[in-house]
């Protein structure tokens, strides 16, 4: 009974916290509710989020606002082609002792990665070498400088943005790095109303930054609660079937997958589906995951993990279309049950 009450209260508080966070962001960012929600799923599930969208859609603003609403250490890295890995991670510098004693020593200068909310702006403009500097930090929440390993402070998450248009002078992220992002969020153009509202806000006096509504411990508590959300075996199997069906060599892969996909999502894809689904369920105040949660998170979880084949690219088949095909064709329930449900 104790656990029951405690759990329900925590769920309610988590839901309340997410509402507060959304409200704080909404004071600065106009619209983009879906994007905000997906970013929240990523933070709560403990993953990193890649935001892709045209310039000027508020990606950076969203991240900065989020960082402002969280009482966490915020760092911003503007990725450029000449950015060096040490510019990200930091480096040791030779320091001459003061007083002319002639003594000297090496001192660690921490890079921007030593933050809690990292904004990797225009990540695809840096060279792969620099991009790879993020790999260890993202996967292990630690960096190694001059042979010395340094733990990063939790909670640690990277919010990266990339521009799909400026292909000139950009370096597409390698698959291994893409796979480390829990979610890839597409930032859409604002609607007319939202754009009008943006104009009102940005052409007058500067808007005050939002209040900090969640602290470090709160974020960690949300993450802990997220892990407690129950998932039934049929739901786990559904996620597994969906990921397996994205593999073109699978016997039950849809025809579209067999034609347009070269490599399907892997284990991290399935983990991403379940963790994100848990976050969705938690934010909705549920203690368990439903099939609908998996379907809801399938696009941001899988779209960057599916590698199209030559035919797929030539035919212009997008990964979003492939994921939608998976959602359509992979049955959530056994066929006999599904027929009975539809028959009523």
């Amino acid at each position, binding site marked *: 009974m104790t656990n029951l*009450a*405690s759990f329900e209260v925590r769920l309610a508080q988590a839901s309340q916290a997410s509402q507060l966070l959304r409200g704080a962001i909404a004071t600065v960012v106009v619209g983009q509710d879906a994007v905000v929600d997906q970013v929240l799923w990523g933070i709560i599930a403990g993953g990193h989020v890649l935001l892709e969208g045209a310039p000027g859609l508020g990606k950076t603003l969203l991240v900065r606002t989020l960082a402002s609403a969280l009482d966490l250490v915020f760092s911003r890295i503007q990725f450029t082609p000449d950015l060096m890995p040490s510019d990200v991670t930091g480096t040791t510098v030779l320091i001459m002792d003061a007083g002319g004693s002639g003594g000297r020593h090496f001192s660690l200068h921490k890079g921007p990665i030593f933050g809690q909310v990292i904004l990797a702006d225009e990540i695809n403009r840096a060279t792969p070498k620099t991009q790879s500097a993020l790999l260890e930090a993202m996967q292990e929440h630690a960096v190694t400088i001059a042979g010395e390993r340094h733990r990063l402070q939790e909670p640690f998450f990277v919010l990266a943005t990339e521009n799909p248009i400026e292909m000139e002078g950009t370096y597409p992220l390698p698959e291994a790095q893409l796979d480390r992002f829990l979610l890839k969020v597409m930032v859409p153009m604002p609607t007319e109303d939202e754009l009008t509202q943006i104009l009102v806000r940005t052409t007058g006096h500067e808007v005050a930054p939002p209040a900090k509504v969640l602290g470090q411990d709160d974020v960690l508590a949300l993450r802990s609660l997220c892990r407690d959300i129950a998932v039934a075996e*049929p*739901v786990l199997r559904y996620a597994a079937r969906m990921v397996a069906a994205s593999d073109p060599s699978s016997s039950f892969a849809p025809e579209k997958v067999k034609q347009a996909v070269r490599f399907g999502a892997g284990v991290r894809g399935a983990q991403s589906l379940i963790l994100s689904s848990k976050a969705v369920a938690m934010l909705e105040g549920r203690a368990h995951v439903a099939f609908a949660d998996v379907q809801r998170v399938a696009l941001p979880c899988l779209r960057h993990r599916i590698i199209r084949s030559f035919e797929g690219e030539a035919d212009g088949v997008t990964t979003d279309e492939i994921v939608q095909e998976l959602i359509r064709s992979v049955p959530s329930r056994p066929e006999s049950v599904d027929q009975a449900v539809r028959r009523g």
Partner: protein
Amino acid sequence: MRVGLLHVRRSATDTLMRTEPRAEPNRFYGLFEKWARRVRARMTIHRALTGLAIGLVVGALLAVGAWRLRQGAVRPYMAAAGVVGLMLGAGWALRRRWSDVEVALYLDGRLASKETITTAIALRDEEGEDDAARAVVVTKAAEVLAAGNPKRARPAVLSAVHLLIPVGVGALVWVSITELPLAPVTAIEPGADIVRVAEIEALEKAVELGRLETPDPEQRERLKKIGEDARKLKEQLEKGMERREAQSEMARLRDEIAAERARMSGSEQRAGLEAAHGRLAQEKMLKEAAKALGDRDLTRFDEEMQKLANQLEKQDRELAKKALEEAAEEARKNNAKDVAKMLEEQKRLLEERAKRDEALRQFADAFGDDMPPQMKEQLDEFREQGTDESAGRLAERMADALKNMTPEERKRLAERLKEQMNKQDGESPGESMTKEQLEELADRLETPEGQRALEEMLRKMANEPPHSDEAERDRALGDAEKGLGEAERELGQQGPQGPGQGQKGLGTAPVPVPNSGGTPGASPGGNSTDKGNSKDMGGTGSHHDKGRGDHKGSTPEIEGDGFRARAGGKLNPGAPMPGVVTGRGKGRAGESANVRGLDGIGEASTGEVGGVERSEIPEEYREQVGRYFSP
């Protein structure tokens, strides 16, 4: 404003104290079991009905198949397929019974509870799960079930496939009461039907030929072979064989027998036969006998000689004996030993038969007024026919009359015999019984032993008449040939018959014929004992035949001056022409008119091609016919 989730967590106990007591997990499981029973029961019914529907459709299809095969009786039983389908459906439902998780998934789907029930059921089976989340989910699931509308959540028992149930039942009923289709007409190759014959008398006679005694060893071998072939044919007919095969074999046997009969007039015998025929033909009283000899019909020749023995006076008999003797001599001169031997035998028989006939007549006269009517009738027949058979029958009647005579009648009979004896004193004994014979006869009548001996003598006379071996052989051959011909014709005339035939006589295997249903019934000429389903369902020709044809037609008269040709020969419409149609039978001796010297002697020799000019053949065809028959 900070939310302070940790603070919330610290004060959770306070919140907890204000929370209403929640339902126990057992409540959920109890509710779930109740719902699950309902769901499973309805799914079982649904699947059983699906099996019933499929079974009925299958049954209807089977019934249609039975209808097409004209198996009318089995059609209603095809409904059993529905019962089988129902049982299979129920079995399938029990075998594929939904698990708890499947039921929970179904309930979640119907109640739109976002897998709450499924998660609660799944967590029940898992160990080590977070009790907090489990408790919350179970409680939520219990609330869902408690608030759920059972009507909304129950599976539908009926579905579209169940429309096949009334359709299947209707189809079964319809197919069961629909009239059976007409049987397809199966064309059978002429004569290819199987014929079974239990007994043919003519074949028995042909088999008997194998046991006929002849002085010529070669002829004995030939007859033995004919008998053996006839026996094999008889066995094959008992087992069943093709009609055309049987007819062909019979024709072959008949031809061999005919050839055997005609052998006497073979090329080596022919000159003697012609010489003997010419000598006999000189005597007017022997004209018929000469004609029979010319026809090589020894049986008829013998019969003619029997008549002559009975009818001719003593002087005429002497002339006849002389003619026979000279004819035999002529035959011998022309190297026709068999003909000569036969004529000499006939001469001997003429003497013996004359004596027998005279004795019978005298003895019959002695009966006087005591002659029974049957004996008198037989006496008249004897006088008219004069054959061995009539003589034998008369002797038999005499023996019967003698047996039934009173002593007075016997006495009178003896007295009359003595009177005849006295009457002969002044006459030449001639061919009649001698005085001693008559005296002995009269003496015998006076004692019972003598009477019995006289009876036996008369019966022996009836049973063992004087006979000619050649004539006997020819008669046996003639009987077998004639019988085979009749059997062959009978076989050809027999139509296809129904099963159950062949007990005696001719019968064949069943042949499908068009009818209005059921098995073919009796066909013309058959004596089928098969009752079958033939009630109101006859085959072609049956009086039950309800064919759709129009029987009101008529054949118009053909205008003509009359028949221009006459056919004297026997026609056998059912039999193939020997040696022509089947190609198996040999050509029959004497049937080929363009072979010199094998036609009837004394009537129309093939050498007389001019006979065509004297015939009834229309003038415009004579040249052509003459050319055809020219040797």
